[in-house]
């Protein structure tokens, strides 16, 4: 294809960095042994995953024995939530989470609710923040788990995880954070944060798809989720995705090494986009906090227009971006995150998420702004809501 492609959906997924793929290659080719096998080829694979484990532990400030590999961020979330709930249900059956979690947290929690657990959903303010005082109040004697995401995938809001984890710790409640979006953007340190469980997914930080990781603080009781063979010290069964694990470790290492430079790069692009859009397009709002957000995340609502149409027209111009609405999944509902921060339906339906990455440039930003200006105008010309608005303002 010779079309222009500007990829600005790094929160959905990233490409694999060439260095990362290079690190994976031996394990996609000649070093194919099963890490459970005791012969040479098996030991090479075992060594590779042990090194990856140590690498990831070093990045996180954890012990290698606290790192468990999974098949995705979703699996890490499922395991953390169901595993903690099942292992601790004798103590109680109350779980606390937030209204703006990813479905990989909300759905396991909903499963547990159907199984007889009780759930409290903490609200968020108009920028998407959980209020620590709300958590403090919500914890009951039978609360066994708190799960609050580190950074939101739609509006990029970064929660005060250290403070929230501290509250849970004081009350002796296990604290899980879904750090899938934070990882690679924020220098996460589990000791400093004081969390008990933390999930990540490699394909969000320039690693491969289909591999994730759960940090489990030593001593935290967790029922198994993937039952079977004795892999991962009998805690997570299944032949290890060796190349994927190696890729995840390589990607995380690169991310930590370059995190400051990367942040600055992303922030510059985000600010430029926000400033130019506000300058040139009327009736637009920025969702989420202006500052305490992921550096590469920008989430706009354009009034009077619908998100999917906007995305499709951007796509025709080569701009690969995402909408807050779950249009593609076949659901008619707008994003639960945008509704949770108090947006009315018509505005929630018109949201656009741009998430920048390593290779994006200021020229990309300028091109996107040009496209947006033209497309938003075109869609508003087509919109009965805009027609009403114009007529109202005339009248």
């Amino acid at each position, binding site marked *: 294809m010779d079309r222009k492609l500007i990829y600005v959906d790094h929160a959905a997924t990233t490409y694999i960095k060439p260095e990362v793929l290079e690190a994976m290659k031996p394990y996609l080719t000649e070093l194919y042994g099963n890490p459970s096998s005791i012969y040479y080829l098996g030991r090479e694979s075992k060594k590779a995953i042990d090194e990856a484990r140590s690498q990831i532990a070093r990045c996180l400030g954890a012990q290698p024995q606290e790192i468990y590999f999974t098949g995705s961020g979703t699996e890490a979330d499922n395991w953390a939530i169901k595993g903690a709930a099942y292992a601790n249900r004798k103590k109680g059956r109350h779980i606390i989470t937030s209204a703006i979690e990813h479905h990989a947290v909300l759905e396991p929690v909903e499963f547990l609710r159907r199984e007889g657990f009780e759930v409290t959903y903490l609200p968020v303010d108009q920028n998407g923040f959980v209020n620590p005082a709300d958590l403090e109040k919500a914890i009951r004697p039978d609360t066994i788990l708190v799960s609050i995401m580190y950074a939101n995938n739609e509006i990029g809001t970064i929660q005060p995880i250290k403070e929230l984890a501290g509250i849970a710790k004081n009350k002796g409640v296990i604290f899980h954070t879904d750090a899938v979006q934070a990882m690679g953007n924020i220098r996460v340190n589990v000791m400093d944060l004081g969390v008990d469980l933390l999930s990540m997914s490699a394909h969000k930080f320039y690693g491969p798809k289909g591999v994730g990781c759960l940090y489990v603080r030593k001593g935290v009781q967790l029922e198994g989720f993937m039952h079977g063979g004795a892999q991962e010290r009998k805690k997570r069964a299944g032949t290890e995705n060796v190349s994927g694990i190696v890729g995840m470790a390589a990607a995380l290492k690169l991310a930590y090494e370059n995190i400051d430079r990367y942040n600055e790069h992303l922030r510059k692009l985000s600010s430029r986009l926000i400033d130019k859009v506000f300058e040139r397009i009327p009736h637009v709002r920025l969702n989420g906090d202006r500052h305490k957000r992921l550096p590469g995340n920008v989430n706009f609502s354009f009034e009077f227009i*619908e998100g999917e*149409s906007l995305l*499709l027209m951007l796509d025709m111009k080569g701009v690969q971006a995402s909408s807050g609405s779950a249009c*593609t999944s076949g659901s008619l509902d707008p994003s639960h995150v945008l509704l949770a921060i108090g947006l009315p339906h018509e505005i929630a339906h018109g949201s656009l998420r741009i998430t920048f990455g390593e290779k994006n440039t200021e020229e990309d930003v300028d091109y996107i702004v040009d496209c947006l200006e033209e497309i938003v105008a075109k869609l508003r010309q*087509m*919109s009965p*809501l805009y027609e009403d608005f114009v007529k109202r303002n005339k009248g």
Partner: protein
Amino acid sequence: MYSEKVMDHFMNPRNVGEIENADGVGQVGNMKCGDIMKVYLKIENNIITDAKFKTFGCGAAVATSSMATELIKGKTVEEAEKLTNKAVLEALDGLPPAKIHCSVLAEEAIAAAIKDYKMKQGIDVSDMQTCQGCCGKCGETRE
């Protein structure tokens, strides 16, 4: 995801706009559904001589609005009333399952505009239904 026909009618929608002093105007859908479609008809001697629309909605909603208004132009009111979402779907080479409701929306917007026309003409419309609920819902039961 979408057929070429859908993408063509989405990127280059036919009949976008308003008709001043339209003979019939219909609007269906609501914000909770995420789709709103408004149709304007010009009707002379029982023939639909012009049709225009404004739509807030996804690609499929825009494309079905475009196609549906194309299909009824030059038709009699009775013919236009018989337009089904199936005909719109076929003319567009289909839609993804989750988007079928959009074609229902177009059918209903036209029906609403015709009802408005008939009311203005003093014709009894008590047996004509128009959709008030969420369009996805009827889409699911109809298709």
